[in-house]
């Protein structure tokens, strides 16, 4: 979607949200507030725009079907340009002006740093764009929710797929030197040992790094069967793949959630063929049967929506469901109770966003599916069945 299109809708939504929060005074049930530090501009804008749209649509669907047990859900976002300080400032601003029940963060760094504050206030649950394994700890981060498998679990799913194709294969992990990128490295090493894969070489690239040829040379030395990328959206993956192919390497390339969006993979050009990714959600164009929510999304938005959209939509659905459970159990709506309500979610039908019924385990939803890019159809198509990591 072009910036102009998006911003028209964003502004409309923001205005609507503003008006709604005024109108809401009329009803007798208190509004529930979903605040968001959303990276609408900046380096992660592609994701931020998608998240924003997904949350908006999910909120709309929820409100149209009677809200959360009669309470209207209101979405209050602020742009952060993917900077932690701006995210924290936005959090401070929104929580000082509203009584927030759910908060959507924009990065691993932000969610980690704001979590103690969220715990201290005890009023809300925190979710966000991050699938960080560190956040997947219910003891250390009791109010955090991850709408999918953690990054370590994602790499685990990819590795299980590798074992099926080629047991004992040689794998290289290439990650960016950021909090996002470093998160699953230790976990990946453990998983590799457990599955009997060779993960000797882990390459870290400087964020915003221009030249990756030295790293490609390291890959050439290692001659791996598979390379897993983590911590990138697009660059420098195509550069790696093109150079490796031109060196004659027969390596297969895979990426985690944020590298698996269809529009991003398409941008890789020729390098995209055979690129594999892992996602806990279906793609926008998924044609499987019995997916009423996917069809609803397609009726609301007629252009391709990214996996960020799916995440925003899904997380909002889950948080609403958790709140619903808490209200039905007669509990007060605070962070601990909403989170308990979310943990009680078992075999929940998402209407096709996730292909199998969803159960929350700890802080995350450990299901996923491996997809592979088909160059002839220019789409990421399923390469495995839905895998549950219980």
């Amino acid at each position, binding site marked *: 979607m072009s910036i102009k299109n998006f911003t028209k809708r964003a502004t409309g939504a923001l205005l609507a949200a503003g008006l709604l929060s005024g109108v809401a005074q009329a009803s007798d049930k208190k509004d529930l507030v979903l605040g968001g530090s959303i990276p*609408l501009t900046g380096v992660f804008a592609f994701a931020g725009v998608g998240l924003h749209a997904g949350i908006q649509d999910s909120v709309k669907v929820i409100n149209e079907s009677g809200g959360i047990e009669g309470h209207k859900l209101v979405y209050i976002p602020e742009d952060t340009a993917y900077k932690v300080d701006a995210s924290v400032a936005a959090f401070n601003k929104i929580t000082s002006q509203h009584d927030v029940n759910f908060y959507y963060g924009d990065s691993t760094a932000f969610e980690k740093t704001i979590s103690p504050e969220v715990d201290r206030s005890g009023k809300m649950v925190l979710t966000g764009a991050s699938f960080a394994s560190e956040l997947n700890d219910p003891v250390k981060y009791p109010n955090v929710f991850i709408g999918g498998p953690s990054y370590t679990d994602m790499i685990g799913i990819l590795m299980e797929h590798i074992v099926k194709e080629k047991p004992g294969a040689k794998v290289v992990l290439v990650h960016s030197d950021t909090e996002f990128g470093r998160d699953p490295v230790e976990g990946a090493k453990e998983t590799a040992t457990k599955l009997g894969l060779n993960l000797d070489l882990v390459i870290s690239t400087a964020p915003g790094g221009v030249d990756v040829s030295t790293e490609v040379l390291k890959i050439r030395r290692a001659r791996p069967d598979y390379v897993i990328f983590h911590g990138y959206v697009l660059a420098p993956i195509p550069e790696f793949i093109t150079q490796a192919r031109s060196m004659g390497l027969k390596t297969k390339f895979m990426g985690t959630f944020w590298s698996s969006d269809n529009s991003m993979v398409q941008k890789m050009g020729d390098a995209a063929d055979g690129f594999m990714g892992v996602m806990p959600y279906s793609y926008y164009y998924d044609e499987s049967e019995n997916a009423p929510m996917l069809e609803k999304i397609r009726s609301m938005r007629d252009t391709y929506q990214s996996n960020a959209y799916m995440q925003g939509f899904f997380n909002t659905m889950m948080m609403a469901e958790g709140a619903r459970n808490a209200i039905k159990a007669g509990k007060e709506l605070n962070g601990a109770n909403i989170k308990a309500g979310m943990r009680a979610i078992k075999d929940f039908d998402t209407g096709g966003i996730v292909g199998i019924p969803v159960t929350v385990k700890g802080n995350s939803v450990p299901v996923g599916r491996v997809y592979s890019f088909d160059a002839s159809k220019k789409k990421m198509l399923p390469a495995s069945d839905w895998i549950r990591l219980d």
Partner: protein
Amino acid sequence: MRIGTVKENYIADAALFDTSVQKGWLVALLAGLVLLPFFAGQYASYLACLVLINIASTTGLNILTGFTGLVSLGQAAFMGVGAYTVAWLEMKAGTPFLLNLIIGGFAASFIGIIVGLPSLRVKGLYLAIATIAASVILHFVFANWTAVTGGVSGVTMPAASLFGYELVEPKQVYWIIMPVTVLMVFGAANIFRTRIGRAFIAIRDRDISAEVLGIRLLRYKLLSFALSSFYAGVAGGLWAYFFRVITPESFPLMMSIFFLAAVIVGGMGSILGGILGAIFMTMVPEVLKMMVGVLTPFWSDAIAVMSPVRIIVFGALIIFFLIFEPDGLAEIWRNIRRYFHLWPFKT
């Protein structure tokens, strides 16, 4: 109209505030600062705290760059040193926050002296570039000395506590930030009544002549670095207590440029300039946000351009002030004051 002021002795001549009108305004300002948290909302208190922290840091940079003429692009890195020190002390040693701030200031001071050591060998532009190097190296240390700084994840620290009462919300942390900043600004103003301050100004104007006059260059230049870094360290500590979350990305090179811009826009070499510059540069993004809110019903693209427009406005302000008003906001303010002092006469 102010006709003239008669000074009867040197002490009166060197006073910071000479007329009773000035003293009156000062009392009003202090009263306003004290009463602010009781009348302002949460977000306004938040902004006030941010402005005060920036004022503290800008005043420090002003001492180094505005008064001593040593351009430094390392202010944010020194703040980072102070912030990490305070965080480490608060978490590991549990010492009272005032002590932490002072130790944080001294830690930054120590690093500042090391960074300032080349200042006898290199001057001007080269020194500025050396401070950029220091900034990059310190950033590397922040990101990789995981034992102390938590590496790329950074540190999250508990709030400051005063007699067991935790200071968490902006309205509460304000009571640490405001007194410390006011004290530091007064301290800075006072420095320039003493020999040390005059030595700094002499170095700025012509350092070779200053040396001829008997001012030991290396000692005073290092003192200037130490002092300015102390301010930065304390400001960084205040920042730590305010945000309670410190990552290596919290103190990027861009922030050093922000402070240098605040010094330039406010007016180099004047304490009031440092204050005005900090307030101005901190409030500009807020004003932009408000403008976006106002424009959005008419121009739907407004929200998407706010972030880049802020960057452009930042750069444009620096360029504009350097070309048209090199003495900054302080000079504009002085012109306004002079107009009212001399009215109905023309300047």
